[in-house]
């Protein structure tokens, strides 16, 4: 098992990259204007999401079509707590993550025995239900009115109101998630997930409690999704059910399919290429074709599966 991705095994590669990412807000000549910084921040959010989703389909081999549900859950938990109680992000964030874990486990527990297709459908239905509740329960979520006026993230009592501060904050979360995922991946936990992905029965016969490890995977994945959501709400300062459509699940899936399912650097790379690409396409394509972006993503998925099913950075070296 070559669990270390190339990205992490080659210092020549990742050190310059890390430096570039760290220095991005300070690149001269207006390059790092608010717009680029916003796109960069969004990219980092999607990197976190891609890493989180990757845990389930990438590591345990179960297709999750409802990841946006946890993203939305995290965003709404954080958004509502902030609006009602004006709590600090450092208090809200763990609560959002815990809520994500709770629903992740709840969703996971009964789906343990389901095969891949059915699991995918249940995850889809579950996330649609979450979004439906968010949309319809006005007393709780204000439904389609959205939740405006969410406070910005803060740190030690100071409000982080500069774009670069939000950028570094999500960068910090990304590195945190990356640390967790990389650690887990090369541990007995990660191995157990890979075993489940490859052969559930054999995994059981070497002593892996398949149910428990699947649940841990669901919980971790949901936690990361909720974390991204919580940051997103505080950064965006507005949440609305339309922000968590099914399409978002597909987009996140697209990121990891593009980068290579199960590959951590692949997930990062997928987000790194595709999210800025959506912005580039928005500008490059004429207005009448702005929907063609989605069309291209659909096509991209099909072509990747056809010609490079393992993605750009496949996990295995032959």
């Amino acid at each position, binding site marked *: 098992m070559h669990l270390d991705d190339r990205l992490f095994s080659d210092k020549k590669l990742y050190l310059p990259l890390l430096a570039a990412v760290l220095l991005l807000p300070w690149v001269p000549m207006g390059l790092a204007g608010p717009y680029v910084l916003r796109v960069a921040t969004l990219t980092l959010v999607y990197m976190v999401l891609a890493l989180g989703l990757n845990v389930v389909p990438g590591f345990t081999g179960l*297709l999750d079509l409802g990841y946006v549900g946890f993203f939305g859950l995290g965003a709404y938990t954080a958004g509502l707590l902030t609006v009602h109680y004006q709590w600090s992000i450092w208090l809200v964030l763990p609560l959002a993550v815990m809520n994500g874990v709770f629903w992740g486990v709840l969703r996971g527990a009964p789906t343990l025995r389901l*095969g891949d297709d059915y699991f995918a459908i249940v995850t889809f*239905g579950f996330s*649609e*239900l979450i979004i439906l509740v968010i*949309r319809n329960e006005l007393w709780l979520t204000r439904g389609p009115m959205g939740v405006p006026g969410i406070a910005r993230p803060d740190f030690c009592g100071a409000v982080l109101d500069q774009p670069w501060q939000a950028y570094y904050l999500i960068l910090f979360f990304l590195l945190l998630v990356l640390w967790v995922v990389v650690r887990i991946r090369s541990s007995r936990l990660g191995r157990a997930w890979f075993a489940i992905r490859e052969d559930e029965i054999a995994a059981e016969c070497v002593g892996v409690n398949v149910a428990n490890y699947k649940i841990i995977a669901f919980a971790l994945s949901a936690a990361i999704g909720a974390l991204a959501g919580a940051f997103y709400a505080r950064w965006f300062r507005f949440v609305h059910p339309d922000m968590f459509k099914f*399409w978002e699940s*597909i987009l996140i899936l697209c990121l990891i399919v593009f980068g290579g399912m199960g590959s951590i650097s692949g997930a990062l790379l997928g987000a790194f290429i595709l999210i800025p690409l959506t912005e580039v396409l928005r500008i490059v394509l004429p207005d009448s074709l702005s*929907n063609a972006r989605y069309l291209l993503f*659909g096509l991209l998925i099909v072509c990747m599966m056809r010609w490079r099913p393992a993605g750009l950075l496949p996990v295995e070296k032959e």
Partner: protein
Amino acid sequence: MLTAIFEQSSLFLQQLVNGITLGSIYALIAVGYTMVYGVIQLINFAHGEIYMLGAFLGFSLLSGFFGFGLPFGLAVAVSVVVCALAGVLLDIVAYRPLRRAPRLAALITAIGMSIFLQNLALLIWGGQIQSFPQHTIPPFLGEPALLLGDVVVSWLQVVILTTAIFLMLALHLIVHYSRIGRAMRAIAQDKTAASLMGVDVDRVVSYTFALGSGLGGAAGILVGLYYNAVYPTMGYFAGIKAFAAAVLGGIGSIPGAILGGGILGLAEVFGGGYISSSYSNGIAYAVMILVILVKPTGLFGRQQRDKA
């Protein structure tokens, strides 16, 4: 008191009529899912988009969107045939190269195709809800066929129901009494053994796609007429609900799909009518999830023996 009872019962009857109509539409779409799943164990996510395509083709041919209009019957026939061909094309382009790939790959491809087709329709026809021009639809369809106190059954509902029944019967005959139908069932049970008997599996799969997609296209036109609304995302929701219907009945089983469609249609209408209308999609999802969790093989589904 009496009038209240009368009102309640006619409310119930009207909902029943609505539910059965809706159910028969779901059943028509669900059959397409179930047939493809039965034969190649693939959830053809793009099936809903074929249904949408059927509706759009019917609309375009009738309204002269492509620059020419066709008479009603011909337009319907042409769009059903084109849908059938589109289904075959879908199989050849997207799924056939992945026959031996992991099922996850095929499933993701299906989702990709679904997104692609939906947005293609958006580019061609635009995102707005389109309506059939009044003059293109036979006028009697709008008239009530049956008036029972407050209960109205429109000719359109009658036509939908009879078409659905007719198509289902035709499908039953094809699947059970034709050579190709026998081959489909054989492939569904054992692909290798079927090819050892000289069945060209790819060809039969193409037939399956053609049949299922044709039915989906027919459902698309019927729905387009019924609601007089055609729009690119119609396939997404209808597709999911029809899939839920197929699962409910036991995916892979045609009578199951029909029964599942009926149950789901009724559940949705009664749920929407008596409980909460904004959750009517939710009811479909919830029914689907519960059925999968409690009985993963559905009502009529057979437990597939693991072939070691």
